[in-house]
């Protein structure tokens, strides 16, 4: 069953040009020329119940804008949005009670009170019974490991601790649909890993549908079977992560360490040099020529170590952007 459906969604923001300088400012008081800034243009996709989909793209691609349309915060310029059968922008209480939007950059917690107070507020706002509340707080506290910090003023918490409390506040009403906009931004690898485990668990245990954006490929790799790639407000790819990996894996990545330093010039003929630091180089070579190139490398240089692998996802996605439509 599709719980999220987007059809030909377009959102233009209004912006106006201010001519530079004082005169420009005065002029803009009198007549202000507005022009539309397209943030997303005609995108369509649908997501099934229980899916965990990665939504990726460079800065300004339109990811946050899409999520805002899906959670009913902004009014689409055109197109149809349906989430759990509701039109998000109407913001019916029954719709809002089943979704949650978490933004890594912004928080809903009361800054000068302990996070627990925000949880209490949400308990009232979302009509959560005392029993459910106790149970959920207990469960989330264990899973996120936040026992000692729930009663500390939020502004005294570290970014990672705050994010955990943030997630807790966003999940206390057990939303069926979760929009996670860069939930791991700025967190250290250990906390990132912990949050990933948690997101995976939440998705499984509650059959929650999750749309996740992240600039950290590790998040996408570990969590999402399906990805949607967006750039300049248009969808470039929508499908399985492993097939896009396969599609762009007609290349191999050779990591080679030489016994002595060699000039970068000497490596040029072998393939595209990804990086070259001290005595270690990463070279991307066509799949079919891999064997050939490896034996030539071994012939020509004194090699200390050599490793052949598939290119990183980051590299693949960069390829997708470079070639536009997949």
């Amino acid at each position: 069953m599709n719980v999220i459906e987007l059809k030909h969604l377009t959102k233009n923001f209004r912006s106006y040009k201010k001519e530079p300088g004082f005169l420009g400012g005065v002029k803009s008081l009198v007549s202000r020329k507005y022009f539309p800034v397209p943030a997303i243009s005609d995108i369509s996709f649908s997501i099934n119940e229980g899916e965990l989909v990665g939504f990726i793209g460079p800065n300004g691609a339109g990811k946050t804008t899409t999520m805002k349309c899906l959670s009913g915060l902004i009014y689409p310029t055109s197109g149809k949005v349906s989430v759990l059968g509701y039109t998000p922008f109407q913001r019916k209480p029954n719709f809002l009670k089943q979704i949650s939007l978490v933004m890594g950059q912004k928080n809903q917690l009361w800054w000068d009170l302990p996070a627990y107070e925000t949880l209490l507020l949400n308990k009232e706002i979302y009509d959560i019974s005392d029993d459910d509340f106790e149970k959920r707080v207990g469960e989330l506290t264990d899973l996120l490991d936040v026992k000692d910090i729930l009663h500390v003023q939020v502004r005294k918490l570290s970014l990672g601790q705050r994010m955990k409390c943030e997630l807790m506040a966003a999940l206390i009403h057990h939303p069926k649909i979760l929009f996670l906009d860069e939930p791991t931004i700025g967190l250290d690898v250990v906390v990132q890993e912990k949050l990933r485990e948690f997101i995976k668990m939440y998705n499984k245990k509650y059959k929650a549908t999750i749309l996740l954006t992240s600039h950290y490929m590790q998040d996408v790799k570990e969590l999402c079977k399906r990805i949607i790639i967006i750039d300049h407000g248009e969808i470039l790819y929508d499908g399985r992560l492993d097939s896009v990996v396969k599609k762009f894996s007609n290349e191999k990545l050779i990591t080679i360490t030489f016994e002595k330093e060699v000039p970068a010039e000497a490596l040029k003929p072998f393939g595209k040099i990804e990086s070259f630091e001290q005595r270690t180089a990463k070279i991307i070579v066509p799949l079919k020529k891999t064997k050939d190139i490896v034996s030539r490398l071994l012939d020509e240089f004194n090699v200390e170590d050599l490793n052949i692998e598939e290119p990183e996802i980051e590299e693949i996605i960069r390829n997708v952007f470079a070639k536009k439509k997949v």
Partner: protein
Amino acid sequence: MKYLRILLLYSQHVLQYRTRSFIWFLISFLNPFILLMFWDGALEGGKVINGWNAASMQTYYLLVIVAQSVLITHVENEVAVEDIRQGNLVRELLKPIDYLWLKLSNEISWRFIQGFYGLVVLSIFLLQGLSVQITSEVPMIIQAIIIALLALTMSFMFKMILGILAFWMTDIYGILEPNDVFIIMFSGTLMPFDLLPEWIRNIAQFTPYPYLVYYPVAALMGRGGINFFQVMTNEIFWIVGLFALYRSLWFFGVKRFSGVGQ
């Protein structure tokens, strides 16, 4: 019950800012306090202007200190600047509860603290020997309380409307600052409304301003020459009109919200 519990949680939050709140109180307190001293001198020796003598003027300004702290809401800045312009509205819109109610809970909490400060200051003045002469008739007191509650609602709705004008305007201060001046001039905090020049009164009586402070205080003092039943009816009309206006402005305005800065 649910709304009461939400209100209590908001109060707890607002209490975190009690010091800041006290400073705000002191700033707004200064104005009637200075005027109180001015009139004390001006009406010395039994002078009477338009039915106001030194004692009733003293009562008036002492009550204004409490009334303006309890009745004048300050929600517009938060709505326009923090919520709409800086985008905090995002988190309120996600909640399955009306924005208007959330703001009202928050606002009532502020009025409680400010009103508390107002009463403390009033008690200090009374201990210093100043006096307040309010009406002694119970029905009049009840009537004054109703007028005050309606005034509070009016002030809240009026300021919510000013706040959400920020959906259309990038520079909302162009409206908020003149409004603050009008409040000082026409709401009765500067002087009793009936002492203003007639042509100003003729205009201002068709605005919400005199209802904010002047009428509630006058009602509690039981001033003669005012049809308080008419005041109440007008207040109700104002509230209904403002509410309808708020709803329609909100309906169109929120479509323009872009969640900037989030």
